């Protein structure tokens, strides 16, 4: 059974507690769960071990099998995406609730706002003129974020999503287009305009 062609059958099988379906399901999606846990913990700057990842992986599959979590999934064609979200959130919960740890870092990627001569992209945080040890560093970052919000003024929610998914979450234009179901050139135009706007604002505030 190819799970990518028949996700519906596979998931229904697991809900019916069919063991063969479950084996195929684990075989297919274990890698998604594993990737999503590591991805989320890395993104939030947690210091984690392989054991943490394995524990969370098993917790996710317990929730799917024993707590019938799969019944919640309505869009069977997006099982991998759904699992990645469930696993990512489970990872954060694990650290917050079981290990009582809040995320050490807040994410701020601001990718590709600024390009160096050799074509390397830098995050806004790397480009901001002060060192990380400067006492007003946080205030400076907050100010930059304020400017980003200001630069998003006048955009509709979907356009804001596109800009933020790119600048804050580091997604490529084509992926954003796929996620938001809009043509890629529309996404690119929106992002280019917002970036130009933001750059001007940052320069005016002498942040860049």
């Amino acid at each position: 059974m190819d799970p990518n062609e028949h996700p519906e059958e596979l998931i229904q099988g697991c809900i019916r507690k069919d063991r063969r379906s479950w084996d195929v399901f684990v075989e297919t999606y274990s890698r998604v769960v594993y990737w999503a846990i590591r991805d989320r913990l890395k993104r939030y700057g947690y210091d984690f071990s392989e054991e943490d990842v394995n524990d969370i992986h098993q917790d996710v599959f317990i929730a799917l099998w024993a707590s019938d979590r799969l019944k919640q999934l309505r869009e069977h064609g997006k099982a991998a995406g759904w699992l990645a979200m469930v696993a990512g959130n489970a990872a954060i919960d694990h650290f917050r609730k079981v290990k009582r740890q809040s995320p050490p870092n807040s994410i701020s990627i601001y990718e590709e706002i600024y390009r160096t001569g050799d074509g390397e992209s830098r995050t806004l945080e790397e480009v901001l003129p002060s060192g990380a040890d400067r006492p007003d560093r946080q205030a400076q970052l907050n100010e930059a974020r304020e400017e980003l919000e200001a630069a998003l003024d006048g955009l509709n929610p979907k356009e804001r999503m596109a800009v933020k998914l790119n600048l804050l979450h580091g997604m490529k234009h084509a992926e954003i287009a796929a996620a938001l179901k809009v043509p890629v050139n529309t996404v690119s135009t929106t992002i280019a305009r917002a970036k130009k706007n933001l750059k001007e604002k940052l320069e005016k505030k002498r942040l860049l």
Partner: protein
Amino acid sequence: MKESIGSLHEVKTACPDEATLAEYAGGAMTQWQRERLEEHASACAACLENIRAAQTAERMLAEGALADTGESLKNKAKGLAKMDTGKRRFRSYIWLAATIAAFTLSFTVPKYFAQFLAAAVILGLKWVSESEGIRTLIVSMDAKRRHEEEHEEMPKWRR
């Protein structure tokens, strides 16, 4: 405040759950629903991070770009299905009944005393191993339940 990833202007309305975000990704929503969700997500870093994770996972899985996980990790997850409490408990009762029957027979049929006693020991061991499995499963389910109770104060979508 929830995790302040990036934005200072976080929304306060509850986040859609993962299943709703998956419906958004699949396009199975009315225009009105899509717009409501976009209004929320455009000001919610947690939802945007979920959207990113989902889109990336879908693409990477389709491209075969995700590394397979270790056999022991997969076997542990597969093993959950073997610990189906209901069926297991029933099977353990069968083993217990057979053990008792063999033990009784060993006394009532003196001619085959040793044979029946040996059978009773074997069946008894089966019963023990089956109920051990149940005990392990119940312990792990209890731990899971406690874990989930701790989550009561979390917003609905997190659980």
